[in-house]
């Protein structure tokens, strides 16, 4: 066993503040080429200060959230012990209000009467080199999970501020390598991995063979099939990463059993939309337009999204706005697509909703004993939990995944109530932080989730952690070992489905 494992009590303690404990230079910066690819300056522009202030002014005039949130924090401190990065690092600048204040203090200095004439009194600060360094460092220690916003009496959402700050930094030429490089790949090839169409086709063929070998059934993973009923858009991690790929197999089996024709798309081979992480509407929209184009080109009736947290928030909450994938539009642009889509179903739908509906209608059979070796708990992925819904019923995003798990497993136990549902902790790697240059932060940020998991392990013998987010799955696989867990205990919800589902074709034989 490793010596650097972190010993955990089974409750979450609020640490005393430890100033500058996470001070540093932040994640790797994007190169000139990466920046230019997205239309941002390659290097910090000469008059960066003025450009930044102008961009702040523009952003707050285009986003009511930013303007209102900058004004209406009363510094009550309700959020100070809610961020997993603060709980894990004890750096006070990781308290949500203090993180916002990095941006707010500059707003006050440049845009408010009190800050212009009495800066010391109201904590207004200039945007100087040191402040910019703090912005870069600490706005890349926010995973935009929105846990703080659940507890804020004014509804202030730090993720809106951190998106705005990243947008300002990109515009002056200070971008983050990991996120912007990936966005470049989506722009060029269509997915985060930069996996070209032939490689994708090969992978899918391999998977079909694998399923045939395991089950004896011809389960297909179709791609670019026109006039299919369903366009399936999943995170590209589902095509290659463990344990994600077993989830993709699960989707394929469910579609197979449903008898609904479906297809993946080589043009829109990515559900995740990192455009949200950098708060850039155009980049985010560009990603969403790929899905729109695919849905139109392939002439599908439904769009379904795979297990991916931020993707589902963007799909559920933003797609209708960004690219008209949804319902209830009145404009020609969106109606062109919406008239094609089947209005009997919500558009887009989550794969969990699709599977749940089949279960409700007794269209799927399970041998739950196949999962008897597992005691399963469910990690509510932050952006699904706090920024979306499923099933169009109140709290459906918490109910449906659990019902799907219960349909496939006999042993399901929830973690501590303060760490699930709307109070769920981020995995520690969301919002553009899933990069090795931030591994220290990722390990520390996972601490509150690991606390709750440890408690469930000790009290209920939990040995399986199910998730519905590509980032959560990758992040947990990486950090579980640091907390004395088996890194292979993390699974896709649809892997549980996949393992227990009874494929009828086999019975007929």
């Amino acid at each position, binding site marked *: 066993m490793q010596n650097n494992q972190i010993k955990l009590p089974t409750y979450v303690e609020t640490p005393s503040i430890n100033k500058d404990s996470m001070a540093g230079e932040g994640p790797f910066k994007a190169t000139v080429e990466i920046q230019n690819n997205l239309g941002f300056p390659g290097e910090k522009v000469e008059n960066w200060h003025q450009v930044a202030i102008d961009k702040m002014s523009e952003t707050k005039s285009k986003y*009511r959230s930013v303007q*209102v949130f900058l004004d209406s924090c009363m*510094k009550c401190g309700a959020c100070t012990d809610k961020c997993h990065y603060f709980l894990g690092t004890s750096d006070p600048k990781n*308290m949500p209000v203090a993180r916002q204040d990095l941006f707010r203090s500059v707003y006050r200095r440049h845009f408010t009467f009190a800050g212009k004439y009495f800066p010391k009194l109201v904590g207004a600060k200039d945007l100087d080199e040191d402040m910019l360094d703090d912005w870069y460092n600490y706005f890349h220690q926010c995973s935009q999970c929105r846990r703080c916003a659940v507890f804020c009496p004014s*509804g*202030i959402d730090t993720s809106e501020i951190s998106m705005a700050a990243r947008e300002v930094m990109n515009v002056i030429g200070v971008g983050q390598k990991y996120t912007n490089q990936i966005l470049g790949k989506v722009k060029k090839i269509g997915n985060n991995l930069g996996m070209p169409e032939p490689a994708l086709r090969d992978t899918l063929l391999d998977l079909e063979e694998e399923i045939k070998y395991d089950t004896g059934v011809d389960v297909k993973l179709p791609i670019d099939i026109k006039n299919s009923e369903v366009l399936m858009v999943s995170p590209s991690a589902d095509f290659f990463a463990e344990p994600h790929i077993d989830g993709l197999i699960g989707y394929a089996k469910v579609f197979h059993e449903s008898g609904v024709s479906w297809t993946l798309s080589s043009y829109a081979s990515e559900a995740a939309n990192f455009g949200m992480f950098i708060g850039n509407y155009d980049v985010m929209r560009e990603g969403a337009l790929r899905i729109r184009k695919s849905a139109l080109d392939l002439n599908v009736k439904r769009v379904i999204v795979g297990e991916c947290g931020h993707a589902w928030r963007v799909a559920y909450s933003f797609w209708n*706005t960004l690219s008209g994938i949804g319902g209830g539009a009145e404009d020609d642009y969106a109606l062109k697509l919406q008239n094609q889509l089947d209005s009997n179903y919500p558009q887009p739908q989550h794969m969990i909703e699709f599977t749940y509906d089949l279960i409700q209608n007794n269209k799927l059979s399970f041998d739950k004993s196949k999962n008897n070796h597992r005691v399963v708990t469910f990690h509510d992925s932050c952006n699904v939990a706090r*920024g979306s819904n499923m099933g169009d019923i*109140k709290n459906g995003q918490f109910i449906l995944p659990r019902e799907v798990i219960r349909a496939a497993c006999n042993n399901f136990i929830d973690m501590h109530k303060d760490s699930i549902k709307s109070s769920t902790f981020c995995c520690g790697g969301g919002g553009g932080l899933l990069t090795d240059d931030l591994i220290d932060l990722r390990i520390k940020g996972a601490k509150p989730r690991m606390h709750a998991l440890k408690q469930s392990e000790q009290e209920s013998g939990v040995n399986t952690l199910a998730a519905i987010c590509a980032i959560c799955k990758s992040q947990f696989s990486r950090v579980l070992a640091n907390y004395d867990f088996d890194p292979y205990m993390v699974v896709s919800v649809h892997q549980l489905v996949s393992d227990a589902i009874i494929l009828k074709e086999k019975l007929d034989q």
Partner: protein
Amino acid sequence: MSPISIFFIIFFYIASLIFILGVSYKLVQYWNTPVPLKIPIAPSSLDKKGVFLRFFREIFLFSSLFKASKWTWLFGWTFHLALVLLFFRHLVYFWPGDVPLILYKIEPFKYAAYPLVFGLTGLLGRRIFVDRIRYISSPSDYLMLLALIFIALTGMFMTFGHNHPNLLMVKNFTEGLITFQWSELPGEIIFLAHIFPVFCLIAIFPISKLLHAPGIFFSPTLNQVDNARKRRHISDWASKKDNDLKIELENNKKDD
């Protein structure tokens, strides 16, 4: 008229003017700023009724704060409730002409001063002794609490210590402010010390964190209906992008 009365009359009008113009400006600014995306926060509401109930819980019960911290909730909620009761209690001094009976009947609201001081002291204590909250506090955060405590204590000293100023003069003065027929202010220092910070707080309202009061109603996280899939939500500037794209596509077609 005494210089002190003139000073307070002018100060009152300046403070009120700043308050009305400043808050109107902020309300118009918030109203006019677009909301490009649907960003309701869990537990979100699937219909307008749900949003209404959510605001009811937030405004009257501080439900999110209750979830966050029981101490802050206790102090904060007590303070705000007491403030509202005392506001109504003070209407009797402002009511022009015949005062409705109800304003006399709520006289016992004066005892809300005790929970007011309790709540404010608790909030100040948290600011001083909890290291996280001390870290995020600016001088203005302490000053506002101290001003409120000072207002409460001077008020209590007058009400419960039997140091009332001439209430008829007070009433004539406030009536005068409203009817522009100004009259002399009672000269007791304690009374002046009571109303001076009140006028100050009114004046700084639109340029300070006191904006949280109107701000909460404009929070998209709280006031949006969670129905993004059912209704297309689009702001003007984003809608323009749709049109630009449509024109571009049509032009491409012509080129073909």
